[in-house]
């Protein structure tokens, strides 16, 4: 990429971080509207009304939707371009720190043992930046930010099933994970499911699933059938908004499936709260930035 790209990337990363915390993706808003229309419990309906009121208020005041400023996770897809990932990582890290300080975002990153806070949401493993090749993308770089909230992240789970447990075992694990999350992770949930791969790959697949728009179903039939079946089954649990009972426990299930070993069947469930924090932008070779649909341009 030409001179100046890494400065643009820094600014875009910081802006995406703040944008994801102050405005919801259009596809999540649509899904919450559908939830409000279909929810059968009066308590559930009331909670969805308060959620909508809160989202509107955050928009009017340009303030945070939720106080949890998250764990900064970025997904960078590179099309047919030369990208220096050392410089790209440094830019995203600087953008994260700059946005944290400029907007007085709560710093969340602590050493797990001493609990000492790094102060600017960066550190040895933060932000978490995933680089992925995407030959279909053209001559651009696509950046997605997800400041992942901990309430829902803490409700996530991973298991290594035996192949004998099969698809039924996969579904049982997903339902059990959601039921055990109850109201603690702020339902209605977006459920990211990973199936296959290795121990760390399956966790990554479940996170990658959460980066996908709720408008888009899985590409293969097996993937989209699993998503639709799990969504129907999760909503039969009756947890409802905030876990206080109702017909809408999840607004979407996104699943990613990868090959695994002949003797393995890994499953991961990454729980996401109703906020579905996510923001994305595309930077082209001329350094023009395109922000995703329906968002205020920072």
């Amino acid at each position, binding site marked *: 990429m030409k001179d100046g790209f890494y400065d643009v990337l820094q600014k875009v990363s910081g802006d995406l971080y703040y944008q994801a915390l102050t405005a919801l993706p259009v596809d999540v808003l649509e899904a919450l509207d559908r939830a409000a229309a279909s929810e059968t419990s009066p308590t559930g309906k009331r909670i969805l009304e308060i959620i909508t009121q809160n989202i509107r208020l955050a928009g009017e005041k340009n303030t945070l939707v939720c106080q949890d400023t998250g764990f900064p996770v970025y997904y960078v897809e590179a099309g047919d371009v030369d990208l220096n990932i050392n410089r790209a990582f440094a830019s995203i890290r600087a953008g994260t720190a700059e946005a944290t300080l400029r907007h*007085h975002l709560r710093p969340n990153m602590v050493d797990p043992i001493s609990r000492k806070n790094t102060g600017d949401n960066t550190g040895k493993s933060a932000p978490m930046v995933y680089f992925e090749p995407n030959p279909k993308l053209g001559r651009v770089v696509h950046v997605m930010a997800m400041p992942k909230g901990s309430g829902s992240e803490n409700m996530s789970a991973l298991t290594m099933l035996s192949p004998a447990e099969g698809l039924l075992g996969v579904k049982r694990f997903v339902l059990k994970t959601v039921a055990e999350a109850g109201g603690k992770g702020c339902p209605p949930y977006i459920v990211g499911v990973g199936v296959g791969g290795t121990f760390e790959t399956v966790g990554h697949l479940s996170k990658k699933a959460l980066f996908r728009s709720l408008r888009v179903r899985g590409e293969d039939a097996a993937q989209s059938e699993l998503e639709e079946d799990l969504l129907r089954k999760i909503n039969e649990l009756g947890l409802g908004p905030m876990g206080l009972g109702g017909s809408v426990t999840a607004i979407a299930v996104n699943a990613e499936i990868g090959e695994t070993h002949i003797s393995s069947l890994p499953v991961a469930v990454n729980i996401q709260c109703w906020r579905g924090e996510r923001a994305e932008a595309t930077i082209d070779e001329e350094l023009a930035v395109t922000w995703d649909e329906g968002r205020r341009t920072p």
Partner: protein
Amino acid sequence: MRTLTPPLTDDVTTSLRVGDEVTLDGTIFILRDATHQRIFEEQIPPPPSLVGAVVIHGAPSFEKHGDRYTILSMGPTTSMRVEKYTPSLIEKYGVRAVVGKGGMGPGTTAAMKQFHAVYLALVGGSSALVTSQIEEVEELWWPDLYGEALWKIRVKGLGPALVAIDCQGNNLFQSVQGTALGRIDAILSGRT
């Protein structure tokens, strides 16, 4: 919808039932993980009296100008993380309402029944709304804990919150979750 004004007395708390919608006016205290650890692990009693008090689980982001604190964003956090400390907070220090999200466990439910306290569930993630209902920071102790300090704030119309654990031993979160867990086999076999 009822408005509760702390400090709360027994006649108020015992008259509430799961499912009631309430709002709060007046002075409440903010506590989170590190605040509870200071009280119960380091065994340092909270400086203010918490008799009849309402506590909310959260940690604000804030600005400080001179001695004045302004809360920029604050909303409820997951209450279960402080389940092990909450029965003592009720029994030893006299807290009579806990505000948070996601519900609490059997220990807190039993203490609430015995000592006439309630759990009020806010809508998780509703910080823009909650922040707009905070009027002022009245006092702060333990600033070394940053957002997790012990905050005394004044609120107006905080809520709406739903009574989710009452003094009769009813726990709405646990009953909903118990039903969900019990349904899994039937859902998987298509018997629903």
